[in-house]
């Protein structure tokens, strides 16, 4: 299974958030997308997940174009975004049961319990989301993402707000997904975690891809340079 974005262009008004970006992610691979603020990381994730149709370019899975309009595709995708995507007035279990049912997960209650257990949030099931801390919300959002056992994961800053135990649980869950053959695209600002967890790292600056390589051979100092040279001069 290979997920591929070719020549992706996305604009917001006159601003090109992505300008001809190519990206490939294979099964059993974690691809980290890093870059300074405004580099186009989140837009890239939205284009790959089918949330936003690119103005130009194509997203394909094993050579076949995919689109957010295809329910089959949406059923295979899991997304963690900046915002939790949870209903504040519903309890954790109500939120997760709702999404599990929409995904037609067999035995949703068991799936919810298992997802909460995986992410170390089993005790939160009956709590309303509005009463949770930011970190707890992030755990629940992660549990929601894993509910329907997606084989393609898009994670936008998933470690934000997590305490060390929850971050470790998430790392373990991601490694298990990678072993199971999932495609994982991870947007992060955390270079240490990126190099530790990902197989490849893609660096974006001002909507352009400026680096794409194995993390084993990546020089952290070089990667850090992309952040400090600012977005004004992507070359």
């Amino acid at each position, binding site marked *: 299974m290979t997920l591929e974005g070719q020549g992706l262009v996305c604009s917001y008004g006159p601003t090109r958030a992505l300008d001809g970006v190519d990206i490939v992610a294979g099964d059993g691979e974690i691809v980290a997308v890093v870059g300074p603020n405004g580099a186009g990381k989140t837009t890239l994730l939205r284009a790959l997940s089918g*949330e936003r149709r690119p103005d130009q370019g194509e997203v394909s899975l094993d050579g076949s174009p995919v689109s957010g*309009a295809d329910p089959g595709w949406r059923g295979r995708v899991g997304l963690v975004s900046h915002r939790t995507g949870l209903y504040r*007035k*519903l309890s954790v279990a109500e939120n997760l049961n709702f999404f599990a049912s*929409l995904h037609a997960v067999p035995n949703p209650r068991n799936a919810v319990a298992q997802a909460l257990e995986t992410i170390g949030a089993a005790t939160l099931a009956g709590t309303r*989301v509005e009463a949770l801390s930011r970190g707890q919300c992030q755990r629940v959002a992660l549990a929601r993402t894993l509910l329907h056992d997606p084989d393609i994961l898009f994670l936008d800053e998933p470690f934000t707000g997590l305490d060390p135990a929850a971050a470790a649980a998430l790392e373990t869950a991601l490694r298990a997904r990678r072993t199971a053959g999932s495609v994982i695209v991870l947007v992060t600002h955390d270079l240490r975690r990126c190099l530790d967890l990902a197989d490849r790292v893609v660096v974006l600056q001002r909507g352009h891809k400026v680096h794409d390589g194995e993390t084993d051979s990546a020089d952290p100092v070089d990667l850090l340079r992309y952040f400090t040279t600012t977005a004004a001069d992507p070359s």
Partner: protein
Amino acid sequence: MNELRRAWLITLKDLRLEFRTGGRLLAMIAFVVLAGFLFAFALDQSQVAGRDVAAALIWLVILFASTAGAGRIFDAEEEEGAFRHLLLTPVSRPAIFLGKTAANLAVIWLVTALAFISLTAFLGVRDTGSPAAHAAVFLPGTIGLAATGTFFGRMSRHSSLGDTLLPVLTFPLLVPVIFFGATSTARVFLGRPWPEISGSARLLWAFAVGSVFIGAALFRHVTDE
């Protein structure tokens, strides 16, 4: 999974949120009661019988309350970005539209019942006519209001004008609902036979079915980027 079942899950979720949040519902209820109260003072009942104007006022109050509420249908969806995740589930856009329209309809029914009771009471309408005939008129009328409000409630989210845009978009479209709804209800108040009312009721049904189908078919254009 059956799309109707998914739509039903969305309806249940929306109603649960509606009753737990309460803000939109309370605002609509307060508006309906206060409007009825003020109309009773504004109308010189020695010159104009309450029964002659009750139908028009009831429909206008329902229209204003439902339009004001329509702007808030997607509040809970947007609060933490949940709508984005709803759109990423395999549920179809028409099913989302139907689910949210059904929840909106339930709220509008509540408002309609309250508007009917409060206005007939405040305007001193003693003989309100056949309840079954009223139901046969209000049912299609409110379905039309709910579907139109849900569709344009979503559309107004994309505009910088927001809620200001909503009445501008919906009121011209809802002229048939108000016209046929108010004339039919007035005839029910007057105890006219059903054949005098059924023509308008059929047109209300045509509007209701049309707005549901068109809204479901076009909903993806106001949700997807």
